[in-house]
């Protein structure tokens, strides 16, 4: 068994809405986070990911279940006595303190002497690339710099676990991408676990060792980014992470037949019963009319150029929507089908993933 830093044992939490209903934010969640792991909680808003994070940091009291951090029961401990620090969504820097005072806050509160505090503040700011900025006030910094101060402040006390609540959502795209890589590097340098909350699937896939996809207060799937993308456990995960073409139908050996009569080949021998086949848009390629590889014939409705790829929006003869992504390299082929408005989209049956059928 892997060395666990955080363990949630049937953690449960429900909120009362102002309209008098109850919303289940955490539905008996079990979760193990390993030491040095970068775990991402991914889900749409209202899925319980922030509640889960706040339950770990202590701002949300559980209705049931337990939370263990490094083997110690933390369920009833107030936030200020948990060995966990958080990077807040809006940074939550203290506006009346300088960058140095903000960064050193945890040490000051813990009673660390001034000389050591100054040294460690310098070290922490160096780690996030803000060397010598101690004297500035937060409002004099850019959004990206404020983000780094929040990070420095959260890591200075060497927490066992760092929680990040959508910390990059306020940054522009380029900065966000460079921060993603920096966060990952920082996590390796510090050698502590990160739990990162986001609704951005790209961010989750880029940074994480494992991703937990949440919906309705439950973990739908907890797996590596590749497994989440290639072998989603259900249609929620398949559609939330990446674009997808789903074909529900009756599976037979090597074939799945949909209700509207489409036949999808798949690599799974001996599959039976109701199932859903998943084909990612980039798995399609444009085949010649006489090609014998498994394929779908579609009428094209839209061809969108997005730089690295073309996105094809088509419909099968039975009216089913299909999305395909063709590398921009293949632009001569795309030029051809742009003329005919028809395409034969071929795929590799071995790459088709079968999802179990779900109770509707």
């Amino acid at each position: 068994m892997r060395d666990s830093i955080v363990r949630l044992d049937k953690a449960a939490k429900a909120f009362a809405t102002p309209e008098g209903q109850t919303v289940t934010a955490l539905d008996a969640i079990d979760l193990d986070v390993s030491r040095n792991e970068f775990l991402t909680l991914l889900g749409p808003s209202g899925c319980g990911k922030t509640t889960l994070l706040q339950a770990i940091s202590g701002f949300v009291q559980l209705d049931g279940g337990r939370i263990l951090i490094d083997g110690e029961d933390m369920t009833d401990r107030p936030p200020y006595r948990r060995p966990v620090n958080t990077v807040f969504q809006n940074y939550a820097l203290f506006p009346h303190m300088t960058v140095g005072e903000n960064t050193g806050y945890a040490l000051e509160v813990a009673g660390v002497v001034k000389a050591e505090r100054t040294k460690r503040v310098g070290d922490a700011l160096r780690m996030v690339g803000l060397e010598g900025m101690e004297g500035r006030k937060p409002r004099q910094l850019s959004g990206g710099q404020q983000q780094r101060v929040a990070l420095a402040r959260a890591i200075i006390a060497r927490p066992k676990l760092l929680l990040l609540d959508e910390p990059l959502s306020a940054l522009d795209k380029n900065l966000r991408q460079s921060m993603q890589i920096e966060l990952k590097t920082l996590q390796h340098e510090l050698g502590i676990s990160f739990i990162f909350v986001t609704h951005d699937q790209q961010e989750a896939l880029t940074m994480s060792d494992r991703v937990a996809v949440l919906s309705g207060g439950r973990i739908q799937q907890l797996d590596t980014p590749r497994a989440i993308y290639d072998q989603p456990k259900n249609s929620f995960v398949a559609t939330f992470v990446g674009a997808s073409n789903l074909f529900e139908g009756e599976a037979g050996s090597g074939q799945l037949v949909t209700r509207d009569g489409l036949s999808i080949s798949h690599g799974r021998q001996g599959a039976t019963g109701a199932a859903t086949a998943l084909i990612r848009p980039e798995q399609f390629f444009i085949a010649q009319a006489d090609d014998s590889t498994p394929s779908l014939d579609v009428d094209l409705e839209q061809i969108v150029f997005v730089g690295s790829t073309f996105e094809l929006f088509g419909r099968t003869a039975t009216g089913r929507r299909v999305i395909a992504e063709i590398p921009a390299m293949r632009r001569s082929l795309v030029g051809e089908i742009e003329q005919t408005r028809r395409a034969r989209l071929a795929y590799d049956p071995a790459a088709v993933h079968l999802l179990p059928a779900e109770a509707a």
Partner: protein
Amino acid sequence: MKIFATLARGSLIAYTALFFAFIYIPLALIAVYSFNANPVNMMTWTGFTTEWYAQVLGFKTKISENALYLESTSQLVEALWNSLIIATSTTAIATVLGSAMAIALYRFDFFGRRFYRTVMFMPMLMPDIVLGIALLIFFVNSGINLGLKTIIIGQCTFLISYVFIVVTARLAGMDRTLENASADLGANEWTTFRKVVFPQLLPGIVGGALLAFIISMDDLVITYFIAGVDVTTLPMFIFAMLRRGIKPEINAIAVMMLTFSFLIASLGLYLRSRQK
């Protein structure tokens, strides 16, 4: 069209000039006449002197030796002294109670919270004359002798509201996640209050205190009802002077009060700008 635009612009400038003239010329006149050497009629200019100021501050001057002049400086100084004692005490009490109340109503959710909030606004809406007479009836019926003590208690009833409102406004602009951030970094509630909440609240508390001080120094109506016969405050003294005949030293007093209020307001603005 161009003529019309020029005309509109000209009228706007004229209106603005008149507007400010109307507000500030009376004040400027008082400042000018506070240097008028005429000992009897303060509206007739007879020459420049600074003796009114010297007189108010209690120095021997030629004016006080003039036969036409009635001596009242010692009473004036006593009235000023009373006002300062009252203003300092009420400011201290109102600031502590008003701020504490604002923090409690912001921080905790308890039964009757909204009711308390409404009740705190009431004394500001109440006409001074009603509050004054109500306080007088209350003090007389409960057998408390009127004097400094009753003025202090009486003024506190509405000054607490002013402080409460200023501090509440400041609290409303504060970010609750900062308290969470502080707790997350290991600070307990008291430390969080001391290091995060209070420093951010301080400009509001200081602003509330300055406001309370100025209002207390300035209050006439309510104070008049509850002062009794032995105690006179500065506004009461000036008001009484009006009835006995206006004396030129009133100009000097007015200018000094104005300067004092101006200094306090500037201090408040400076503190606020420094915090931003």
